[in-house]
């Protein structure tokens, strides 16, 4: 129990930190200790160094900054004694990272230590290098490490092997140098050397095709023999875990075989026997055995088709799935997701069990099972599965409802056999989990409802009934009041009754009650209230007999604390009041049918690039961007024209929405002047409103939060339909395009380029945004020109900016040089890409990308995958 730094001070420090009752107290102790350590460092007494560093490691673990101790690590490493070196290297690995320039200073010490006569010193250096080396260090020290792979002591060989995995990962060009050394390690008997050697081979295979071919040809048989030997080996106490000899080595070997067998029928053939043996003979009553079986199943599924083995693998998963141990069930669900790819039928057989797992008390199991169920859905079972899931939604935990409802919605949207079924299911979801449903989902529902004219009456009645019971579900309320506003007359007159409906009696006053309830409820949010106000205006025309009551409700909103509501209330009141005759005009008619195709394209375009590495289809949309479909939904028709001239307004909007509207203001030349547009509208509506220019700012604000029009006269335009023809005719073609696609950075360019593809936000982080715009050169449908715009969202300048991209084999990518490699704060640079899709029409574009830059002298790396390209590129 004696420690090399049992100097009382370290223990004292730990004790006093342990004695702290509050975080503030702990901070105090740490601050004082850090001050002491700094002072001690300044005195430069070598005897205190290792104790200082041990303390710093502790402080670092607690989460306090310790950079001032970094130089101490270097001094300790350079000192001759082993204990000093050991703590120095440990400090190096804990306190420093490969991005820091201090690290460069250690290269020389490392080089000396790698050549040290004491093998334990060599071991320390290898370990440090393996954990933190940078590409530069890897290049400098690779020859030493290469030599050490053949060192006499196996404990050095194993560390050299793992150190090499880091080196080849950092500098893939060096891979060739290690191929021979790595294959020699596979012949060893020492388990540590074997497991690290196998890891090195695995690493080499993943970065170098020649290495893969080499190991496939020369080592497959040897590896199979090694696996057979340890599988059949006699009891070895040192490596035995629950009757399995070294399960870790088993698993590493199976992983390497997986890479060798994948895509190569001959190699796969060779390993069939041993895989069958492992799959059938491994004890499955302990965790270690199951770990090996699990790995074996994955290997069987990845190598080339050997159908009898796959039956075996699926059976093992079936057994896992019915296991009582939750860990085993979890991995079974995980693996079944991969199994679907080659044997959907076999997985479908377990559907009932999997559905039960969705209802498991364990959140991790539920999550996996839900992912799996959504992969199991097809046209034939969608109704049954959806019913099961919705039934469960009613009783599930509150914190699971968000995930569950999102999945149900995506299943329903994807596989819905008919509109009425879709509407029914969505209504159920909104009723049970309306407050968790994302904006794009209920926007989509409204678009579908709008398009299903024969179901308008049915839908509005169903919504009316639902909202009476589930008035706390915000999104349900929104859809309901929208429908009541649009189709209120169908509700009270029982128009378009379907055979399945029970007749209900709803008076005009009942319908207005629902809307009034929504607008007066204190916890309704701005969007709901705004939608209710619009619905009231529409109802004032649908229900003339109670228009006075409706007017009263509207008038009450004049006192709203929300400026926008106040203003609209005044305007709507004046419409109801002074222009009774226009009630019968087109102003408050139903909206024209919303364009489903445009909405879907817009919706797909606004989905963020999924950066996450876990396999989960993203349904979340950044708040700001979600406003875009709503704008469309409310038929903002001409509003881009109005917004465009005010560049300050556009900037503001850009801030709020997080999208680039900058160029739409530049487009204003192509659109009618602001004044003309406003006059036109005012003419049509023949009401006097304040000049739109004055209102832009406040009203744009509303657009993002509430989704109402961003301009008083436009607000009326929203309600008037069809859109005043004047506007459509005066706007040039480019202008119209701009209307439909106000978020595009350069819409006019696209408009001239044949079929237009909507631009996408390819990637967005807190500091950086990347937008792609597309154009097709005439004559070659396979080719797409992509203009990438990189926008710096941070207040700092990025230097040495570099964008790298990788595409799957069916694509070819050509990158032009970027317009600059320096990205000023809030500025942008562009770069052109040319993508050739050899599977044009069959597969969509996908891309992985990596961006590197220097921020305040530090390297920053961002990575992501872009899979929200528009279809058909």
């Amino acid at each position: 129990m004696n420690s090399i730094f049992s100097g009382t001070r370290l223990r004292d420090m730990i004790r006093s930190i342990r004695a702290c009752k509050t975080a503030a107290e702990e901070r105090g102790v740490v601050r004082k200790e850090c001050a002491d350590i700094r002072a001690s460092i300044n005195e430069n007494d070598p005897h205190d160094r290792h104790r200082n560093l041990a303390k710093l490691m502790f402080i670092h673990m607690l989460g306090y900054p310790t950079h001032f101790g970094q130089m101490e690590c270097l001094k300790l490493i350079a000192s001759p004694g082993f204990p000093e070196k050991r703590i120095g290297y440990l400090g190096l690995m804990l306190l420093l990272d490969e991005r820091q320039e201090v690290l460069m200073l250690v290269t020389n010490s490392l080089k000396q230590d790698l050549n040290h006569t004491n093998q334990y010193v060599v071991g320390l250096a290898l370990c440090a290098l393996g954990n933190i080396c940078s590409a530069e260090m890897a290049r400098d020290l690779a020859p030493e490490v290469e030599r050490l792979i053949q060192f006499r002591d196996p404990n050095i060989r194993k560390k050299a092997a793992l150190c090499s995995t880091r080196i080849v990962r950092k500098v893939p060009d060096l891979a060739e140098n290690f191929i021979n050394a790595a294959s020699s390690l596979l012949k060893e008997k020492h388990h540590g050397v074997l497991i690290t050697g196998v890891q090195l081979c695995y690493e080499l295979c993943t970065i170098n095709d020649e290495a893969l071919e080499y190991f496939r040809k020369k080592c497959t048989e040897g590896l199979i023999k090694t696996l057979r030997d340890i599988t059949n080996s006699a009891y070895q106490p040192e490596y035995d875990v629950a009757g399995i000899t070294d399960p870790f080595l088993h698993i590493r070997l199976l992983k390497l075989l997986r890479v060798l067998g994948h895509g190569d029928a001959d190699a796969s053939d060779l390993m069939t026997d041993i895989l069958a043996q492992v799959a059938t003979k491994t004890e499955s009553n302990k965790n270690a055995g199951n770990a090996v079986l699990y790995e074996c199943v994955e290997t069987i599924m990845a190598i080339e088709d050997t159908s009898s083995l796959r039956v075996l693998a699926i059976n093992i998963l079936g057994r896992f799935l019915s296991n009582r141990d939750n860990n085993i069930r979890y991995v079974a669900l995980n693996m079944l997701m991969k199994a679907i790819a080659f044997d959907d039928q076999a997985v479908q057989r377990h559907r009932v069990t999997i559905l039960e797992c969705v209802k498991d008390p364990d959140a991790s199991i539920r999550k996996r099972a839900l992912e799996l169920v959504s992969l199991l859905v097809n046209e034939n079972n969608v109704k049954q599965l959806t019913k099961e899931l919705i039934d469960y939604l009613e009783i599930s935990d509150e914190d699971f409802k968000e995930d569950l409802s999102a999945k149900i919605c995506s299943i329903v949207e994807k596989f819905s056999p008919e509109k009425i079924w879709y509407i029914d299911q969505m209504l159920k979801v909104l009723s049970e989990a309306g407050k968790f449903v994302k904006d794009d989902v209920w926007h989509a529902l409204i678009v579908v409802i709008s398009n299903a004219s024969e179901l308008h009456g049915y839908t509005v009645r169903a919504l009316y009934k639902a909202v009476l019971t589930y008035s706390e579900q915000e999104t349900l309320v929104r859809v309901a009041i929208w429908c009541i506003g649009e189709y209120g007359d169908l509700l009270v007159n029982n128009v378009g009754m379907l055979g399945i409906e029970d007749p209900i009696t709803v008076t005009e006053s009942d319908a207005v009650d629902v809307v009034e309830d929504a607008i007066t409820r204190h916890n309704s949010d701005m969007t709901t209230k705004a939608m209710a106000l619009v619905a009231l205006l529409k109802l004032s025309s649908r229900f003339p007999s109670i228009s006075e009551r409706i007017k009263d409700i509207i008038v009450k909103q004049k006192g709203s604390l929300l400026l926008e509501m106040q203003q609209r209330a005044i305007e709507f009141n004046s419409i109801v009041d002074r222009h009774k005759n226009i009630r019968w005009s087109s102003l408050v008619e139903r909206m024209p049918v919303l364009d489903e195709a445009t909405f879907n394209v817009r919706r797909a375009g606004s989905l963020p690039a999924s950066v996450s590495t876990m396999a989960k289809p993203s349904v979340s949309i950044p708040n700001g961007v979600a406003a875009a479909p709503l704008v469309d939904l409310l038929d903002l028709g001409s509003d881009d024209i109005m917004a465009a001239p005010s560049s300050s307004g556009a900037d503001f909007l850009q801030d709020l929405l997080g999208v680039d509207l900058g160029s739409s203001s530049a487009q204003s030349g192509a659109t009618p002047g602001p004044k003309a547009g406003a006059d036109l509208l005012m003419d049509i509506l023949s009401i006097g409103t304040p000049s739109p220019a004055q209102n832009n700012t406040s009203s744009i604000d509303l657009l993002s939060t509430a989704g109402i029009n961003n301009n008083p006269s436009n607000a009326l335009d929203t309600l008037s339909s069809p859109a005043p023809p004047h506007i459509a005719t005066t706007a040039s073609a480019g202008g119209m395009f701009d209307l439909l696609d106000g978020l595009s950075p350069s819409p006019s360019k696209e408009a001239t380029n044949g079929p237009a593809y909507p631009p996408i936000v390819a990637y967005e982080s807190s500091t950086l945004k990347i937008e792609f715009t597309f154009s097709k050169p005439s004559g070659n449908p396979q080719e797409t020109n992509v203009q990438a715009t990189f926008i710096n969202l941070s207040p700092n300048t990025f230097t040495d900016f570099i964008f790298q991209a990788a595409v799957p084999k069916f694509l070819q990518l050509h990158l032009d040089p970027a317009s600059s490699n320096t990205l000023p704060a809030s500025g942008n640079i562009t770069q052109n890409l040319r993508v050739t899709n050899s599977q044009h029409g069959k597969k969509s574009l996908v891309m992985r990308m990596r961006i590197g830059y220097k921020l305040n002298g530090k390297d920053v790396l961002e990575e992501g995958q872009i899979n929200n390209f528009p279809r058909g590129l």
Partner: protein
Amino acid sequence: KIERSERERGRKMGIRFILMVNKQGQTRLAQYYEWLTLEERRALEGEIVRKCLARNDQQQCSFVEHRNYKIVYRRYASLFFMVGVDDDENELAILEFIHLLVETMDKHFGNVCELDIMFHLEKAHFMLEEMVMNGCIVETSKANILSPIQLMDKAH
């Protein structure tokens, strides 16, 4: 969505961090195999600990998905051992690894407890160093793991 091939998967690093946390949620040992800033680490540890400690039911499985990590955790007396791995890592094998780690520490400290690790933090790290490098397992024999450490103890 690209179907990730076996080869691409290999680019991942396996074990990304190892944490030992007591049941009050205080970190007692932290070893990261990828670089995170101090703030990121504090935030990550806080989130993970909250998530794992909330799952106190014995029946619940030992895996928690968090951000793009999978956390494999196991409780020994008052101490939680948490290992963050990539999505594709064999979860059951990591559980077995945690057990090996605990057994190794037991063998050295004799029924290891939180205080052993606190007051011998550097030694716990030396053991980990012998077991894991760059996110990969180096050695699985307890004797081989402990021999350099025992050698040092003898020298002093």
